[in-house]
């Protein structure tokens, strides 16, 4: 037994992310780790990789207690972690990236200098192991994503690891490149290296691994050999719970088209996207991370420019979009990254909630603010969102929990009276109770005449809320399902198998 985890727990503040995980890993074994977003996969791998320590429980490596206090400590013990976001320095060469911390040196009149010859030889050797034949003196910024991924692996191999953790290694790779990566993984397995492979792409997981472990809500719900799984069972175990009355019903009275998008293209991000949204309709967008969903709504809202195509808003062709215009038109956009793009963390609740709708509370040439009115309106909306807080004008939003923070962002947008609300992963990292309240708010909004465009990686959520679900892959729309056609496995398969359109 190479690696053993016993009853590992991890909490952030009051939130328990891992609720006692126990499993083990043998030499030369590949373990597929799957689960929904927020199930605790990354947290568990970060524990192994030495990013932070567990709150409780024990880890053993080769029978010895394993408690790394930094990524470097983990690496020196033989655990390498290949993050989804690569840890490379694009301004340095491949070889320098490989040896950033342990350059081979030679003494030169008592001065220790980098031994460029040895580096070249060693770097070529390492690159050879991952099947790269390029010049190690090339700068990393000149490489495309696939070779970068391989360089990162080569870097990990340089430390002679016993275990390698892969976090979504194929998201930025083409089919051909991914295939090459799999060959490499198999080669490494033959050398006796154990691997943990995290991916949303269940096809890949089934092709590659020996065993599958499924995480759900911080618990290991099932771990078994590969042969006892197929995609359907995996999905079922991942989603697990029955969502009884989780999604409140809604009066159906879908109206005219509000937004029509045709052949929208932004080079490098999205291509020929065509869809529409009707009044009082909720349209969901599903797909893998990097499928272009977020990019598409950013273009729609006016944060990024598009190259061709047309957007028609309430029958009028729009040639210019930017956030200011969008808000005037009645479009609101709740972004995925709450901290970086949704909140002013060092400001109070009032200032955060009123920001987008400030125009409503001002008058006169100098745009004087009617503080009283602003406060009353904010209070009203914050009350409607059932946010738990102590003081509107003195409490900083950073002191609120994730769910309550999200409700404040939502309140901010509701204050602008939006006709179309764009939601990008609105329930990411939020507890169940808050999720349900947010669903309720969305339904309310729609019943009062607005439309919603919602991006989510949780299929259950989309199926429960939406009137239509559109699937995107590689910047294109690949499928569209009406409510009557909703079937979990079909949609998942379309998204995960990267199948072509069933439109």
């Amino acid at each position: 037994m190479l690696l053993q985890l016993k009853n590992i727990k991890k909490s952030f503040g009051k939130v328990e992310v891992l609720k006692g995980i126990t499993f083990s890993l043998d030499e030369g074994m590949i373990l597929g780790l799957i689960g929904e977003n927020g199930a605790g996969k990354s947290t568990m791998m970060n524990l192994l990789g030495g990013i932070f320590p567990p709150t409780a429980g024990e880890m053993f490596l080769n029978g010895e207690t394993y408690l790394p206090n930094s990524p470097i400590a983990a690496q020196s013990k033989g655990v390498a972690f290949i993050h989804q976001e690569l840890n490379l320095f694009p301004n340095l060469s491949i070889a320098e990236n490989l040896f950033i911390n342990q350059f081979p040196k030679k003494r030169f009149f008592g001065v220790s200098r980098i031994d460029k010859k040895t580096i070249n030889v060693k770097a070529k050797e390492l690159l050879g192991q991952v099947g790269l034949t390029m010049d190690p003196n090339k700068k990393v910024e000149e490489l495309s994503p696939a070779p970068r991924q391989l360089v990162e692996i080569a870097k990990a191999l340089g430390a002679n690891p016993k275990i390698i953790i892969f976090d979504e290694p194929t998201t930025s790779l083409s089919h051909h490149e991914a295939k090459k990566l799999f060959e490499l993984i198999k080669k490494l397995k033959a050398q006796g290296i154990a691997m943990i492979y995290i991916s949303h792409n269940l096809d890949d997981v089934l092709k590659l691994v020996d065993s599958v472990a499924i995480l759900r809500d911080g618990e290991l719900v099932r771990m078994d050999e590969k042969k006892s799984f197929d995609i359907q069972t995996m999905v079922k175990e991942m989603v697990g719970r029955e969502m009884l009355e989780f999604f409140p019903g809604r009066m159906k009275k879908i109206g005219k088209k509000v937004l029509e998008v045709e052949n929208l293209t932004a080079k490098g991000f999205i291509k020929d996207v065509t869809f529409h949204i009707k009044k009082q309709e909720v349209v969901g967008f599903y797909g893998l991370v990097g499928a272009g969903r977020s990019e598409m709504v950013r273009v729609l809202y006016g944060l990024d420019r598009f190259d061709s195509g047309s957007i028609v808003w309430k029958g009028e062709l729009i040639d210019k979009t930017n956030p200011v215009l969008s808000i005037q038109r009645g479009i609101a956009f709740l972004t995925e990254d709450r901290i970086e793009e949704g909140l002013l963390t060092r400001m109070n609740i009032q200032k955060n909630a009123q920001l987008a709708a400030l125009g409503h509370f001002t008058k006169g040439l100098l745009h004087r603010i009617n503080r009283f009115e602003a406060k009353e309106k904010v209070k009203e909306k914050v009350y409607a969102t059932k946010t738990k807080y102590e003081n509107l004008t003195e409490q900083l939003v950073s002191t609120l929990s994730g769910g309550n923070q999200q409700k404040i962002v939502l309140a901010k947008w509701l204050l602008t009276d939006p006709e179309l609300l764009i939601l990008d992963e609105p329930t990411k990292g939020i507890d169940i109770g808050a999720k349900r309240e947010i669903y309720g708010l969305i339904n309310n909004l729609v019943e009062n005449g607005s439309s919603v465009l919602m991006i989510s990686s949780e299929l259950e959520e989309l199926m429960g809320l939406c009137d239509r679900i559109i699937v995107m892959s590689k910047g294109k729309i690949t499928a569209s399902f009406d409510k009557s056609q909703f079937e979990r496995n079909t949609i998942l398969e379309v998204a995960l198998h990267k199948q072509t359109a069933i439109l």
Partner: protein
Amino acid sequence: MTRFQKAIQLLLNYSTVVLFLVVLVTFGLLSPKFLTLGNITNILIQSSSLTILAIGMTFVLLTAGIDLSVGSIMFVVGVISGKLVVIGLPIWWAIPLVLVIGLLFGLVNAFFIFKLKIVPFIVTLATFYVGRGLGLYISETRAINLPESFLQIGSSKLLGLPMPIVILLLVLIIGHFVLSSTQFGRQVYAVGNDMAKARKAGVPVKKILLTVYLICGLCAAISSLVALAQLGAVSPTFGYQNEFMAIAAAVLGGTSLFGGKGNILPGTLIGALLIQSIQNGLVIINVNPYIYPVITGTVIFLIVMIDSLRHKSVQKALRTKTTI
């Protein structure tokens, strides 16, 4: 990328070299005396102090930091070495002593920056004033005239090369060696690119920050001595605004203020030579001297603008690459 875009990109990348050539040719055409061997040696000697200062600054800028205190370090070092030599301490004793003072300043800067986490700008702005105040206090704002022996070092020659150029070459070679051929040097680039990533990769970030500010302080001290050996006196304005010139030289040489990009050879050297050539050329063609700062300021402004545009376009290119 179209051919036109490529050409623009190329021009952006080599803007300083292009500008340098333009400056040389322009002055060469305006005055036959500009491109003579004598004048070129002159430019080299005059630029030696600034270049050394800018080399130290390059290290700091590479880590995305800044050091505004170098001009004041120069001044304090000048005053103290002047005082020491005047009261009769042999020069060979005074020199190592003042180099240590340069290092001490670097240490103080580094301490406040990485231990107490105050932004480099405020820390070095404070030490800028503390240093200048200290220097003025010690010198009682008097100009200190140095003995002959100091000037002799300045005008002496080694292997047929004037001393300032010898020292310049030495610092240049060592600086270039450290940055390009040692583990420390490469890690400086890593820290400048992304401090969090560097920490994750196990690069000793604190040690590197400390070292770059030490190097910067040391270079300021050396630069001060080189300037003194040419001037023969320390006036209260000695080193004033040199920090800006050093930053400008490094940035002109392609060192990015955002860290992680740039080099000493040829970058910073060309940047410093460019500034010095402009100043020298303006004197040679006998332009109204009041216009010097205006012209120098305009050139620096343009280059900073180009740097930002370059940075913007690189960011855009990177984004496209990583998403799909």
